């Protein structure tokens, strides 16, 4: 209905292959981006930042990461929580180890470290397939969490066993530690998400993306047309873990500030991220974000409704949250296995064909 595509023709492949081939979409994209960067910072307060925006941005990154591995390359992982922990602890060690290093650099390096760990745990994927692999990744999850619990070196032998993010500045603005302003933190996370989303898009639409999808859709055929399965899977594990690691690092350094591995990076987190991409849509960047947004917002809404408005005890709201998330997963798997992404695609098609139904 809103689309006016007449006269939009492509005279080069570069133009034909761009991310937003339709002018209208491109416009919308830039408007949203501008709004997020230029307007939102002036609207937010602590509550919005901490309850909604930051978790959304950070888990958005994690979801994109897991989607690259699961949605694009078809390797299911239940280890996201563990890998986020790796990111967080790597970041902590770097921050404390090199106090002068820019936090941004620390975070990116943490991503790199996580990538290496991811590749390590990805090695078995050559032999193990399907949910055998999914279960195998649990090993990563539990082992890593145990590791960060047990080995004092990781939390600098602090009495509490917790890790705390020291205060860091960038361009003279505090972006970590208790004194950081929500705006600053928001912008840091938003920038990370934007850049990483773009990179993910570029990777998935190019040769790497095709290798991954080939492996996902039919690994034998993929190998016979010349895709090296191990390399394809390991790159997927690497990239995916890089994203998840950065998410973990951000979660720790700029968002929570203090972390106890067991409760923050437990198996539940792994599932949470997995659910995000199922509900959002496997094999779709947009889906990852949509899923993250949904699973971050839903509890907040429930809480506000039940606890805030109805005055119910918190634990009931929590129970309901489980109940609803669970049913939604099943619902989506039954009704629309491709999640929000597909719904969105359908709506868009309808809009383009309006007034015709198909």
């Amino acid at each position, binding site marked *: 209905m809103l689309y006016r595509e007449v006269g939009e023709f492509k005279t080069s492949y570069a133009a034909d292959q761009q991310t937003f081939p339709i002018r209208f979409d491109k416009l919308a994209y830039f408007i949203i981006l501008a709004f997020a960067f230029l307007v939102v910072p002036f609207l937010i307060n602590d509550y919005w930042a901490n309850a909604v925006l930051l978790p959304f941005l950070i888990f958005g990154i994690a979801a994109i990461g897991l989607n690259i591995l699961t949605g694009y390359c078809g390797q299911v992982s239940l280890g996201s929580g563990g890998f986020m922990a790796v990111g967080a602890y790597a970041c902590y060690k770097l921050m404390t180890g090199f106090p002068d290093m820019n936090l941004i650099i620390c975070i990116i390096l943490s991503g790199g470290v996580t990538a290496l760990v991811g590749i390590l745990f990805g090695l078995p994927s050559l032999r193990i397939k399907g949910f*055998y692999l999914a279960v195998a990744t649990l*090993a990563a999850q539990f082992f890593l969490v145990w590791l960060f619990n047990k080995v004092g070196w990781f939390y600098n032998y602090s009495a509490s066993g917790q890790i705390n993010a020291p205060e860091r500045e960038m361009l003279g603005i505090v972006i970590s530690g208790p004194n950081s302003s929500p705006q600053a933190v928001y912008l840091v996370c938003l920038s990370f998400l934007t850049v990483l989303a773009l990179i993910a898009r570029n990777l998935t639409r190019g040769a790497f993306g095709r290798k991954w999808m080939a492996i996902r859709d039919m690994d034998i055929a993929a190998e016979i047309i010349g895709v090296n399965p191990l390399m394809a899977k390991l790159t997927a594990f690497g990239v995916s873990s890089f994203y998840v690691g950065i998410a973990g690092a951000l979660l720790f350094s700029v968002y929570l500030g203090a972390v106890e591995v067991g409760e923050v990076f437990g198996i539940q987190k792994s599932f949470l991220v997995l659910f995000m991409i199922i509900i959002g849509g496997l094999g779709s960047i947009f889906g990852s974000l949509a899923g993250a947004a949904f699973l971050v917002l839903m509890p907040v809404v429930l809480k506000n409704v039940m606890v805030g408005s109805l005055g119910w005890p918190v*634990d009931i709201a929590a*129970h*309901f949250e*489980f*109940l609803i*998330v*669970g049913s939604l997963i099943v619902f989506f*798997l039954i009704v629309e296995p491709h999640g929000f992404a597909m719904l969105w695609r359908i709506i868009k098609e309808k809009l383009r064909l309006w007034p015709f139904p198909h």
Partner: protein
Amino acid sequence: MPAEFYYGVEVFLNGLMAGVMYSLVALGFVLIFKASGIFNYAQGIMALFAAMTLVGFQEGQIPFAHLINAVFGTEVHHFGWTMPAFFAILFALGVMLLFAFLVEKLILKHLVNQEPIILFMATIGLAYFMEGFGDLMWGSNVKKLDIGIPQGGNFWIEENTAFLGGADFYGFYLDTLDIYATVIAAVLVTSLVLFSQYTKTGRALRAVADDHQAALSVGISLRSIWVIVWGIAGFVALVAGIMWGSKSGVQFSLSLIALKALPVLMLGGFTSIPGAIIGGLIIGVGEKMFEFLIGAPLLGGATENWFAYMLALVFLVFRPQGLFGEKIIERV
């Protein structure tokens, strides 16, 4: 002989009995997987849910009491009566069967011939749902479960084995509950095997497992089979729930034994009942011994958390089809 050795033996025995528990849960998985190709992640929660329900009936709790109170501002909790364990178990079983029926009706029916991974994720969703539902229904507080199985160290064994180790060995410490559990588990397993071997339904189950189409063509309704299988799985869950529940109280951690069952399956293979049992024993013994010999002294303990998975992982890399699974030949 040094006492360490006997302590080792003791650990080994405890491991065996823990292993039996694992096998018990794993069994639930295998049954469902064989018949429906579904990897039922919710098995653990089913055990928890079953145990909660049991306790609920025993103590005459009012379902959804919290919710009711929250909504109507009432203060209701108990009906004020208690139910004998036996009946409570029967009721709980009834609930589990009802549950099985609903699962088939509301979920499985709509997911016929989806990829396994989708079904797997569906059961994760189911697990979440049940966790929320269970807590909502019976409350999330830790509950004590007692159906009269004696607990605590078994003195008879302790006394009669003390002589082995000399001065600083006081005999094997084995929990009576574990012994009961072992026996019950053994009985359960054998009966299940017999069931699937010698009853019509059992054979039907196996037929379905081998080939859905064939099963359908000989007039076996896939859906009724699924209901039965999930029913049995529910029953197994109940038993497991009782054992674990009475051992360490009914609480969320109970559902994590499901996760423990996964490596068991990967060792034993998803389709083999004996595999599940042996796998369970290996894991049970393995993690206890590892903790005893390496974990506690060298790694700061608590290695049970991950040992099982690591073992499975490493094992799989060399034998992807598990202990009893047959070799997968890839074709173009």
